[in-house]
């Protein structure tokens, strides 16, 4: 097990370095945006003197590299500065929103991951049958439609026409958990439709890829029934690619929800980001980007570790 721990620590270290590089990119990318922040805050009517005073107050007169390290030092302790618009602390503005986004992502993942893996196994078993083709066409259609379009279709049929679910996923603090699930069902379902195809097709491909292996032929020649050949002999060896695709899609559920949140007016971090960009609220933009990057890196790290843990050669060294 010492080897695995070492491997995980190494990956974690690499992840931190990647995050550092990304933080640098984020900070200076925002820096490159046209326009002056102080000017933007004060508006066109401000006199040069007031702009200069604000610049000094905000520390903008210092060199960019110094400001980067100040910002980074703050970010490490959870202090992303204050919003330029509301004056609220960025960490406070983000935390509730981020929890909402995490909730929606978890909701969608809990439905999508089992469904896509089970479906993937079934289509691998029934490969080249009509079921396989229909499942492929349906999931491909859902992945190829833009999510806002899917969202509006769902609103039309499940909210407007039938009124099973609310069209707007607004939240309040006194809702019961059941009500919460009901309110957010449509955005969650939209996300499920978007990510299922990718994971299902990878599961199918990873399994079918193994079916030519000698050990699969051996299982068949031992009289093992087809479903068991897939579930017991192929699937355990197919986890590594499946886990990677699942991680990629989970990351998408958190970082790619902007459109879905906008369609359903869901108070998540994506909406916050869109607002902040349009208002030039740079501290919030930077913080959101850093959180997205960290999510991506963390989930990919988890996928790497998962792939390692499902490899018997690494789990049971000689």
């Amino acid at each position, binding site marked *: 097990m010492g080897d695995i721990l070492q491997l995980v620590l190494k990956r974690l270290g690499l992840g931190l370095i990647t995050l550092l590089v990304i933080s640098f990119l984020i900070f200076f990318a925002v820096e490159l945006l046209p326009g002056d922040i102080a000017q933007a805050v004060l508006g066109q009517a401000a006199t040069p003197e007031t702009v200069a005073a604000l610049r000094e107050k905000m520390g903008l007169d210092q060199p960019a590299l110094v400001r980067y390290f100040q910002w980074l030092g703050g970010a490490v302790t959870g202090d992303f500065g204050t919003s330029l618009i509301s004056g609220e602390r960025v960490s406070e503005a983000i935390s509730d929103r981020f929890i909402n986004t995490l909730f929606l992502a978890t909701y969608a993942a809990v439905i999508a991951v089992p469904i896509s893996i089970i479906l993937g196994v079934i289509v691998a078993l029934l490969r080249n049958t009509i079921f396989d083709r229909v499942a492929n066409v349906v999931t491909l259609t859902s992945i190829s439609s833009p999510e806002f379009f899917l969202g509006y279709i769902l609103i039309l049929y499940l909210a407007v026409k039938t009124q099973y679910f609310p069209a707007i996923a607004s939240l309040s603090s006194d809702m019961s958990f059941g009500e919460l699930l009901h309110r957010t069902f449509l955005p969650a379902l939209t996300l499920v439709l978007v990510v299922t195809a990718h994971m299902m097709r990878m599961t199918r491909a990873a399994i079918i890829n193994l079916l030519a292996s*000698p050990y699969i*032929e*051996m299982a*068949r020649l*031992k009289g093992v029934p087809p479903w068991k050949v897939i579930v017991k*002999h192929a699937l355990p060896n197919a986890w590594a690619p499946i886990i990677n695709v699942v991680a990629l899609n989970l990351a998408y559920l958190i970082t790619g929800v902007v459109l879905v949140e906008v369609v359903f007016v869901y108070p998540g971090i994506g909406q916050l980001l869109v607002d902040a960009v349009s208002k030039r609220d740079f501290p919030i933009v930077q913080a959101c980007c850093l959180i997205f990057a960290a999510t991506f890196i963390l989930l990919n790290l988890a996928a790497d570790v998962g792939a390692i843990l499902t490899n*018997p050669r690494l789990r049971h060294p000689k």
Partner: protein
Amino acid sequence: MVPKKDVLLEIKELRIEGYSDEQWIEIVHGVDLTLHKGEVLGLIGESGAGKSTIGLAAMGFARDGCRISGGSIDFDGMELTTTPESDLRALRGSRIAYVAQSAAASFNPAHRIIDQHTEAPIQYRIQKRVEAQEDAMELYHRLRLPNPDEIGFRYPHQVSGGQLQRAMTAMAMACRPDLIIFDEPTTALDVTTQIEVLAAIRDIVDQFNTAAIYITHDLAVVAQMADTIKVLLKGNEVEEAPTEQMLDSPTEDYTKSLWAVRSFKRPQKQRPTGSDAVPIVSVKGVDAAYGKVKVLDDVSFDIFAGMTVAVVGESGSGKSTTARCITGLLPPTKGEIQFHGQALPPRYQDRSKDQLRQAQMIYQMADTALNPKIRISEIIGRPAQFYGGLHGAELKNRVDELLDLIELDPAKFYSRYPPELSGGQKQRVGIARALAAEPSFIICDEVTSALDQLVAEGILKLLDKLQQDLNLAYMFITHDLATVRSIADEVVVMQKGKVVEQGPKDEMFKPPHHPYTDLLLSSVPEMDPNWLTTLLEERGTDSIGEAASV
């Protein structure tokens, strides 16, 4: 004549088709086969003879892209060609079992060995899990596996190849089948390991009076195992006879040619003497390591111009690693490689173009050593261009000349791609590619071990002719002592990264030997059907047990 009621398997006019180039092509053309209870039938032939396909058909199984298109397969009163798949499945693993060529690839890496063993007995409700596990240990014991009570609880990658092959034989025995198909079960093993597996298979088949179809391309092996031998060629039966009779007096020309295949032998050359004789390649006290694992320990030997030095040993003995050190792919940690008495830079990146040109390589798997998307002319032409600086018409002439040298018609092969060639032809292209650089020294890494015997002999003859014409020095890496007998001048025996013995060939094949050389030499199967029995008696059971625990 054995009475009809003892017949276990009767195959009549079996025809099998394979799908290729968008059409079904017949690959087995009406083969008959009769197997009695407890009988062992050897199926032999070169690759493409249809041995495995027929073996699998005896289980009512056709690989993807194959189909049984005609004839009948009667297994103990059941007609397998018309039996529905679910009933066939019930037969597999319980009454007919299969032992595959590569146990390492045929055990599922994700499950423990014993769980794969007990899968069939539990599924057929013959035994409960605990009983099945106890039975597995009993079989491991009988097959003389080391630590029989514990070995099953390991994962396949934690067990050696020879042990896995025996564990797979045990797995085939799990439901005490009436028939086992052995599909080249020892081909992937070293000669020393092969003996243990052969002995184990023979014992267990005897003990349970199981009938078996033993598929192999190795005549000496089949002579030890089979009661009857059937020779196949390109999906047709050539002849069938009891083992002794088949070995003593084969009737068909094809069978005779198989029997005579190892007749090629060229005269042994002696090293040049005198003080001015400098070896082309001299390996001096070389140590090498992969990471922290030391794989070569003080390896030294010389190779003179125009001579062939065979480097022999089991897999893992350091033969190929030595080649990697010579070519500069793996810089030695100690010692040096000399070329014409001059030390070579350890890393190939630091060697001059001329130094690189002098030493070329031919690989074991011509299939993977040639880029399938590049024409033969370019494969051979590139080194001629790179080292010789040839262009245009000159280059074309040189490629034609090289194709002539390897006895392939330039007009036919110049613009073909590797997948259009047979195994032997591909290996010839590999040779031409090495020659294109005009080297003085060629490393041949198991160049014939992936080829059928007749084809392999052709390659050996070609290499010999080229050596005489061009005064080439060969380092011939092989584990096949028959190859050594036919072409080597000197032999270097390696074990666990060390040279245990070296000298001229005639001395090496004469006693007294180093104990390891002796073990290697005596492990090579001979065409005498009593060879295995005699050898096992000579060695005694202790030495088998000892070897088995390695």
